[in-house]
């Protein structure tokens, strides 16, 4: 069929091509593929599908190197979400997704719609969402703008998840000037399904109708995908009309209707209309099924009058799905949607001819040969070179940094670290998230990882996101290895075997050699760790161009880990609970302070080698810990992370403010180490355990070749008392608790009213 330009469409000029983010080379490829000049509609389609966000053109070759298979992986990367089997015929679908750019412009709606999108990715697999997580990065809370972004994102995440009724059970929040102007907002969703109910988004069956479901299409978010593929600049402000508004109420209806549709057997495929909207959902489903499709834009329910095919195809209006139904079942599909007060419109069909065709009534406005629209996108492996500046920072001798006078009193240092917003309690955040709905949250936010039970079984899943961007900045490979290892350790501390990960690669502009170096190294590190720990990658998301004129964010490969608790009896919490229990340290202390929160917070320094990550040791540690837990020997387990051993011990005695304890600890065994490294260094592979049966824990550790030492006793003394040779640190638990629990509320009080006001516009007032 012949493609004709629509009257009134702009003429294709080099300037227009550039505006659409295509390079000259890419444009030439397009012309070669079509054998002619594209129409305006076609240019729009390609600009969206070949955007970084949709095509992964700078990351795909790297992502191919990740380990993705294992017997329990039912669905690896490439689908809406990854799926793993967890026994008893049950499976878990999970995925993480970024909404960094939208959140920088409009934090409330940006973060909220991020949650909406990731929920849809999971329920379109046939899974019922049972948990949400989020991983957030902001600049320093000293800035009013940052407080506004932080408060807005948290409220957006909360309002959306709360309204749909999915508990938000875990996550992380990090504050660092590196994220000033470029907040990172990653949301993860986890769903449960029966293995037999797994649904894939593969268009099939010539003659099957393609149905648009859910909200009407408006002009919002047009070109969001390409927007997410650019640096944030002055010009970004002008792009504000692209903001999308979320409607969690419609999402809830869509969730129930989609699951009912999938279970009804009336449909063959379903996919969220996410980034690049109708275009990407239809093209991707067609490509996966290796079939042709035709879409008639006149049939797409529009919210506004006079919308062009270009706009209808590229709109990112939220809460919409694309369904391929079985031919002849249109009425049944419509009936299910009507029950949930949703509309459905047949907008196209699967065809035998291998083309991707868009018509507007009688006129063909776009036509691409077969699946080449998706597969012809070029990939790039740009030059990679480490930044000299970063290398110099890493090589710097941080041990030579002189102590500040106040550090004479390590309690001062400890409280200063506990007050650091990155370490301090995030209760201010997660109190705004409903984490008890669905009555399955065995461990909610505030522990090492969340634990969500699986009703009808004795099992549970453990969930956590993790990444230390400072480590990855100083050494991308080591940093990414640590991110995986720490996520695994957190999950293991709750009694779960780490099973698989999803990941979100948040990086700067890959065309800069130093950024592409970070990306390449981080992916390599992630692959090494996932292989060593037996946790394949089932999916993820790449967000590049997280830069503004003053530079890129820290390379931040966020890991979303899923673990399996085989019996509810194994569920383990992180705080000390019982006076008289023995405190055992699994793993060993070292003299490493490079890249630590201590250097950042106390010395305003980002330098040195991040701690070494020994993956073999990490694996043994996890095995030993899980075995000790299964033996019933472990009362509590908490890994050491930001702020090191002293912070971990402080957290153990007061993270649960209502049942604070105390402890007497003797670290004399390590008195030859520099005191600050022992207390605040962030050596990897360590877990603080409290136990009524230390002999059993020590024996199990020995069997696995894991160093283990008895370091103290849990007390109800109200103080944390640490002796190291001749040194003694005695901290009052209420005062530690005050530092840890009040830090963020106190900062946010400064401007709490301002954000609440600026946010009252939002739906849930």
């Amino acid at each position, binding site marked *: 069929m012949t493609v004709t330009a629509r009257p009134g469409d702009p003429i294709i000029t080099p300037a227009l091509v550039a505006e659409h983010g295509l390079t000259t080379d890419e444009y030439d490829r397009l012309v070669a593929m079509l054998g002619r000049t594209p129409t305006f509609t076609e240019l729009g389609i390609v600009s969206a599908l070949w955007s970084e966000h949709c095509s992964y053109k700078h990351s795909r070759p790297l992502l191919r190197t990740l380990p993705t298979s294992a017997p329990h992986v039912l669905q690896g990367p490439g689908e809406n979400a990854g799926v793993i089997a967890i026994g008893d015929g049950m499976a878990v679908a999970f995925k993480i997704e970024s909404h960094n750019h939208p959140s920088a412009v409009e934090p409330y709606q940006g973060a909220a719609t991020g949650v909406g999108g990731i929920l849809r990715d999971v329920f379109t697999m046939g899974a019922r969402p049972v948990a949400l997580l989020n991983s957030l990065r902001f600049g320093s809370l000293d800035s009013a703008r940052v407080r506004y972004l932080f408060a807005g994102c948290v409220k957006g995440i909360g309002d959306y998840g709360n309204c749909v009724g999915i508990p938000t059970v875990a996550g992380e929040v990090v504050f660092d000037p590196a994220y000033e102007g470029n907040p990172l907002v990653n949301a993860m969703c986890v769903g449960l399904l029966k293995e037999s109910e797994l649904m894939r988004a593969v268009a099939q069956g010539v003659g099957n109708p393609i149905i648009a479901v859910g*909200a009407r299409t408006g002009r919002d978010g047009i070109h969001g995908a390409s927007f997410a593929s650019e640096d944030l600049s002055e010009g970004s402000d002008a792009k*504000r009309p692209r903001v999308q508004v979320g409607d969690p109420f419609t999402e809830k209806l869509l969730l129930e209707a989609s699951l009912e549709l999938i279970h009804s057997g009336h449909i063959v495929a379903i996919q969220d209309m996410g980034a690049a909207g109708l275009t990407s959902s239809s093209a991707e489903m067609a490509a996966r099924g290796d079939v042709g499709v035709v879409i008639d834009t006149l049939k797409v329910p529009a919210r506004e009058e006079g919308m062009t095919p270009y706009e209808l195809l590229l709109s990112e209006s939220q809460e919409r799905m694309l369904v391929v139904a079985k031919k002849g079942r249109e009425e049944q599909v419509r009936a299910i949607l009507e029950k949930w007060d949703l509309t459905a419109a047949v907008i196209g069909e699967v065809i035998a001819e291998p083309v991707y065709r868009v018509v507007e009534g009688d006129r063909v406005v776009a036509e691409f040969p077969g699946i080449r629209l998706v597969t012809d996108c070029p990939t790039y492996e740009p030059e990679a070179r480490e930044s000299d500046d970063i290398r110099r920072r890493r090589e710097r001798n941080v041990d030579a940094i002189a102590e500040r006078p106040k550090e004479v009193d390590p309690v001062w240092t400890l409280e200063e670290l506990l007050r650091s917003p990155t370490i301090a309690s995030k209760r201010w955040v997660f109190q705004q998230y409903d984490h008890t709905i669905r009555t399955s949250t065995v461990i909610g936010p505030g522990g090492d990882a969340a634990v969500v039970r699986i009703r009808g079984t004795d099992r549970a899943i453990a969930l956590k996101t993790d990444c230390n961007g400072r480590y990855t900045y100083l050494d991308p490979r080591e940093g990414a290895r640590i991110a995986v290892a720490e996520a695994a350790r957190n999950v293991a501390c709750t009694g779960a075997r780490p099973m698989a990960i999803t990941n979100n690669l948040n990086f700067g502009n890959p065309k800069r050699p130093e950024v592409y170096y970070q990306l390449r190294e981080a992916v390599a590190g992630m692959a090494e760790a996932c292989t060593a720990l037996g946790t394949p990658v089932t999916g993820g998301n790449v967000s590049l161009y997280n830069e503004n004129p003053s530079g890129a964010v820290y390379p931040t490969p966020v890991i979303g880990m899923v673990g399996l608790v085989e019996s509810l009896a194994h569920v383990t919490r992180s705080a000390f609970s019982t006076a008289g229990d023995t405190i055992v340290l699994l793993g060993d202390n070292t003299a490493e302070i490079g890249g630590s929160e201590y250097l950042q917070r106390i010395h305003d320094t980002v330098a040195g080698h991040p701690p070494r990550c020994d993956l073999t040791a990490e694996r043994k540690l996890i095995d030993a810990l899980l075995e000790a837990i299964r033996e019933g020997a472990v009362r509590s387990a908490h890994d050491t992370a930001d702020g090191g051993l002293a912070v971990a011990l402080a957290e153990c005695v007061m993270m649960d403010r209502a049942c604070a304890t105390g402890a007497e600890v003797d670290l004399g065994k390590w008195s030859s180490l520099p005191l600050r490294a022992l207390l605040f260094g962030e050596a990897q592979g360590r877990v603080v355990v409290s136990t009524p049966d230390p002999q059993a824990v020590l024996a199990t550790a020995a069997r696995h070749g894991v160093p283990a030492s008895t370091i103290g006793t849990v007390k109800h003394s109200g103080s944390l008392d640490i002796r190291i040779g001749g040194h003694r640190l005695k901290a009052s638990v209420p005062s530690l608790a005050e530092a840890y629990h009040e830090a963020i509320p106190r900062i946010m009080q400064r401007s709490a009213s301002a954000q609440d006001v600026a*946010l009252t516009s939002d739906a849930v007032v």
Partner: protein
Amino acid sequence: MSRYRVAVHVAPRRGLLDPQGKAVADALHSLGFGGVADVHVGRYLVLDVDARDETEARAETGRMCAQLLANPVTEDFEIASVSRP
């Protein structure tokens, strides 16, 4: 200095999705108010402002709207009235 009572309307920008307006319109329809075509829900603020004169009260309130009372990304505002309380 005198005191002025300034009323402000803040409304979701037309063209952006207004889920609240849509839900209210649907509810009104099902209550039998068939003649309702379209509903938008925004905020109505009443501020007591000290200013030299009405013009200043209006200008000052405009600045408050731009800085705080309306979200420049998603909302439009207008000063609906200025009166003496």
